[in-house]
């Protein structure tokens, strides 16, 4: 692994007056895929939204590629190289599949070409002129990921990509993530599907009540099963 690409320390965040992140610490090395595990409502999605800058009421330190991101406005976060794929996918109903794909501006060289994306997601090519929301849930998830891959983002923040999808689609998304890993893409994955995450992630964080309570590499997984059983109920 290379050096740290994303470094988060003592990150706090609030929804209005409600204190939801209580000093999150995590780091991601370049080319690494980490996974944040945790039950519903523990702050996983909020962590991604806070790192991205969508949730602005925050304190602590977020460094990306050595740059302090705390004062960077939301539209400049993407330009620094962070790409966010939300849990709800955010496919735009008034745009076609191809318009959705081409919407995010290219932020750096090195993003996938449209041909590469269509090779990775052949379904999208077939339905390129359909309205984005006419796609199945799995296809929408692929489109949501594809449009960030085109931008040249160095780090993908991926929020529950398997949520509500059929097993065969989950496997396809897993295959895509493995290919991204081979390309050296850095990924922060939030996932409740622990078995899915175990196949793709290099390292795990376990989150509870707005804090990281454990961190371990994939090789330690067998030793952590008891804790995961008690924390996640898996």
């Amino acid at each position, binding site marked *: 692994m290379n050096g740290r690409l994303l470094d988060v320390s003592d990150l706090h965040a609030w929804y209005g007056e409600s204190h939801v992140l209580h000093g999150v610490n995590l780091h991601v090395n370049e080319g690494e895929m980490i996974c944040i595990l945790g039950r519903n409502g523990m702050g996983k999605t909020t962590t991604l939204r806070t790192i991205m800058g969508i949730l602005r009421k925050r304190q602590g330190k977020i460094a990306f590629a050595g740059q302090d991101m705390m004062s960077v406005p939301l539209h400049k976060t993407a330009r620094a190289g962070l790409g966010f794929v939300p849990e709800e996918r955010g496919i735009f109903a008034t745009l076609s599949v191809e318009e959705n794909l081409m*919407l995010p501006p290219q932020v750096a060289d090195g993003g996938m070409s449209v041909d590469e994306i269509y090779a990775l997601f052949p379904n999208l090519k077939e339905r390129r002129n359909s309205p984005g929301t006419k796609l199945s849930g799995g296809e929408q998830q692929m489109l949501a990921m594809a449009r960030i891959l085109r931008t040249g983002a160095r780090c993908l923040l991926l929020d529950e990509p398997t949520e509500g999808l059929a097993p065969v689609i989950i496997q396809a998304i897993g295959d895509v993530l493995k290919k991204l890993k081979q390309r050296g893409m850095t990924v922060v994955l939030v996932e409740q599907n622990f078995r899915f995450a175990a196949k793709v992630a290099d390292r795990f964080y376990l989150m509870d009540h707005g804090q990281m309570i454990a961190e371990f590499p994939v090789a330690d997984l067998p030793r952590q099963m008891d804790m995961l059983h008690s924390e996640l109920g898996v």
Partner: protein
Amino acid sequence: MIFGVPLQALMGQLLVGLINGSFYALLSLGLAVIFGLLRVINFAHGAQYMLGAFIALLLLTVGGINYWFALILSPLIVGLLAAVVERTMLSRLYKLDHLYGLLFTFGLALAIEGTFRYFFGASGKPYAPPAQLTGAVNLGFMFLPIYRGWVVIASLIVCIGTWLMIEKTKLGAYLRAATENPTLVQSFGVNVPLLLTLTYALGAALAAFAGVLAAPVYQVSPLMGSNLIIVVFAVVVVGGMGSILGAIVTGYMLGVVEGLTKVFYPEASNIVIFVIMAIVLVLRPAGLFGKDA
């Protein structure tokens, strides 16, 4: 004779309807663009239309700048003023209830109209059409004033151009996407606050363009916008709040319906648009072209 009405009278009113429809379409298009992205019901739209006409008049009387340059300069000036208003004032209200945006623009409209009434009085001032567009063409069944024909053509060009810009360009895709989910679009690296400013400026510039077009047709008066804006709001509601295509099609359609009503039942011509609005609101609350229709 058609249904007992002379062809000349029918065509004359159709033309009047089409001209009114041209203004309705341009103004409701601007309102729809602004509402679609900013979720602001821009009550200052009528004042921006009036401002467009007055700036054209002042450019001519003070600067000697003719109609053709005014047709470009006036929307640019009003768009720039609107951008300043959006950046410095309106943008502070986005996090509050939509009612605050409506109240702010309503106050702005009253302030602009009051200021112009103070300096120019309530009576209208004439603005001559350009020499190239004076006179009329004999169509056989009626004489078509050339300037009024130009109004219809210019309005169609600008409406279709704006629609194409929104539907077929990358900037338009940003606008449509930001209308649905501005935060996500911003997270892609698009400067949405700037997009909001440009959208408000574009909407105001469209109103000003309509104002310059209207200057030779109607008198240039501080009240010319407030007389029209209520009808335009009805057009936007019928078309579907925020629907670009709805605003354009409904603008022309209701202008023609109003014109035909003047032929067949003149007593109802002032209320026909509002009756249609009431029926549409009852049957299709999202409007004819609205998303939920």
